[in-house]
């Protein structure tokens, strides 16, 4: 314990017990940290998809057959699962992003950030339950 912590500890003696082992904080290992981790990972994944997506869509300006050939690869089973992951990432990033906005601009948001994390997860589950079966039918249903 540093001397500063010892001094402030004396002032509040008996109220806050010293942790016996390195403990988490209000942030570390909790919802706030994991939402931050998820936001960075999903954001990075979405960004790299966006780069590719702008390039493949640009083929529409050059040649219809070339566009159809490239977009055809989006309909394969592996890419179909990739699209499911993409929508999952976008859903998490969007819902958690709205949570971040509420935290940054409202006191209510700061107070209820933990509740909002779990609401975001719940809404995300509902979103995926609605999207996944329909999308998988489009990909695997055959045509």
């Amino acid at each position, binding site marked *: 314990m540093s001397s500063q912590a010892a001094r402030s500890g004396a002032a509040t003696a008996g109220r806050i017990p010293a942790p016996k082992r390195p403990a988490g904080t209000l942030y570390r290992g909790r919802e706030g940290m994991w939402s931050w981790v998820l936001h960075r990972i999903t954001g990075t994944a979405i960004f790299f998809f966006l780069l590719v997506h*702008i*390039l493949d869509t640009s083929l*529409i300006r050059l040649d219809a*057959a070339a566009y*159809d050939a490239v*977009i055809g690869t989006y*309909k394969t089973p592996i890419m179909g699962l990739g699209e499911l992951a993409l929508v999952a990432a976008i859903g998490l990033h969007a819902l958690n992003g709205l949570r971040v906005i509420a935290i940054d601009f409202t006191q209510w948001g700061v107070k209820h950030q933990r509740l909002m994390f779990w609401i975001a997860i719940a809404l995300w589950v509902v979103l995926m339950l609605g999207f996944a079966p329909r999308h998988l039918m*489009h*990909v695997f249903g055959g045509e």
Partner: protein
Amino acid sequence: MTTIEAPRSRPTRRRGVNWEKWGWLYMRFSGILLVVLIFGHLLVNLFLGDGVSAIDFAFVAGKLADPFWIVWDTLLLWLALIHGANGMRTLTNDYARGKLRVVLLVLLAGATVVLLVLGTLVLTTFDPCIGDSTVDALIEACAAQ
């Protein structure tokens, strides 16, 4: 060398535009718009109708025949790419050091500018009659012009 200010010292106000503040605000406000724009995009392209299996040249040409979707997609392109690039800038500043950081930032800025120009040109100059169309209805419509 980064120095850490003494606690509770007044923030030093630099002159000029506070770009970090505007970038921070941009992430929030573009984020709200992007929720609408991206979920609308996903709804029409991946959920309604036959979803991804229906997407081909004719599908996109049909959408881009309507100015509504040209405006929608142009907003999507600019808001999403700048939002994404600014986010990657944050990650690069957090995780890369020295020369690597500068190289990554230059690459990021270059890719962003190139794709913004490319995407905008595609959306504003799109012509369904360019190239050899394999869609009968389109061949007829273009021949009639």
